[in-house]
């Protein structure tokens, strides 16, 4: 079976989608990444990664309702697919194997 084909950003976003569940859209995803990595995030780069994941079938998107708080624009919610979960699982297995028993990591 072929190994995972996810980049670091792809994997991070998929994990965030799993954490956020139904509340995963641009703002919440970016905020979760910022809180975890303690680095500022460009929303456009989050969307670029999400679009790539949707194209590859690892996530799906759907539009919510427009609100005045968003200038009359709808939220775009994202959800991880079964294929995405399998890719994350495969990535976890690979990383756990590679990280195991490394003296530098204690």
């Amino acid at each position, binding site marked *: 079976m072929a190994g995972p084909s996810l980049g670091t950003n792809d994997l991070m976003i998929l994990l965030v989608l799993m954490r956020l569940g139904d509340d995963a859209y*641009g703002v919440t995803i970016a905020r979760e990444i910022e809180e975890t990595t303690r680095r500022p995030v460009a*929303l456009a780069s989050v969307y670029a990664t999400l679009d790539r994941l949707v194209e590859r079938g690892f996530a799906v998107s759907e539009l919510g309702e427009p609100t005045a708080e968003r200038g009359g624009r709808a*939220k775009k919610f994202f959800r991880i697919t079964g294929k995405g979960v399998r890719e994350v699982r495969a990535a976890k297995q690979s990383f756990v194997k590679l990280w195991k028993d490394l003296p530098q990591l204690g």
Partner: protein
Amino acid sequence: MRLRQPPRFAGRLLKRLVPAQEHDALLGDLHEEYQRGRSVAWYCLQILAAIVVRSLKDVRANPLAAARAVITGLLAQMFLLSLFSSLENILTGGGYIWGSRWIGLPWYWHWPYARSLYTVMQGIWIAGNVIIGWLIVRLHRAHGLTGVLVYCCVISALRAAGLLQIARITHWSPDFLILLIGAVNGQIREWILLIAGGYLATRTAKTA
């Protein structure tokens, strides 16, 4: 609760410069964060990041269009340089080269202009770069400013390669550093003019 209005020009700029993509969800997110207290500077930086990220996405999706934009810019640049050279001959030498022949012009072709030659050549350089930017976007309108941005990166890379050669030959002498400062200054001005020309050629999302 009174809603704060984010800078409208920023959103319009994004739609105008990268027209091939859907921006509503992103703009909605930025609007929402702005309501939560983010600053105008934050909003504008996010828009700038979006222009760059989405332009890169456009290039990856349409590499041939990007290559065509660069070729258009390079050909227009070559024409501009030969025009420069001809005009300089006319304004200083009172004539121009046609094939292998020198065509002399009456004295009044170069007498009044020689005094303000630098101003005239600067004006031509400015107008020429604006026209190049305008031409690239006009011929690739569906991609907005992407073509101009790619062209700017390519010519900067070519000039940087040339400067590196000079640096090696001169062993990074003080004279070279002065040349480098001038080159960087010129490159920044060229970028501004090319982008300004490209911006003039874009149309609003409503009329596109």
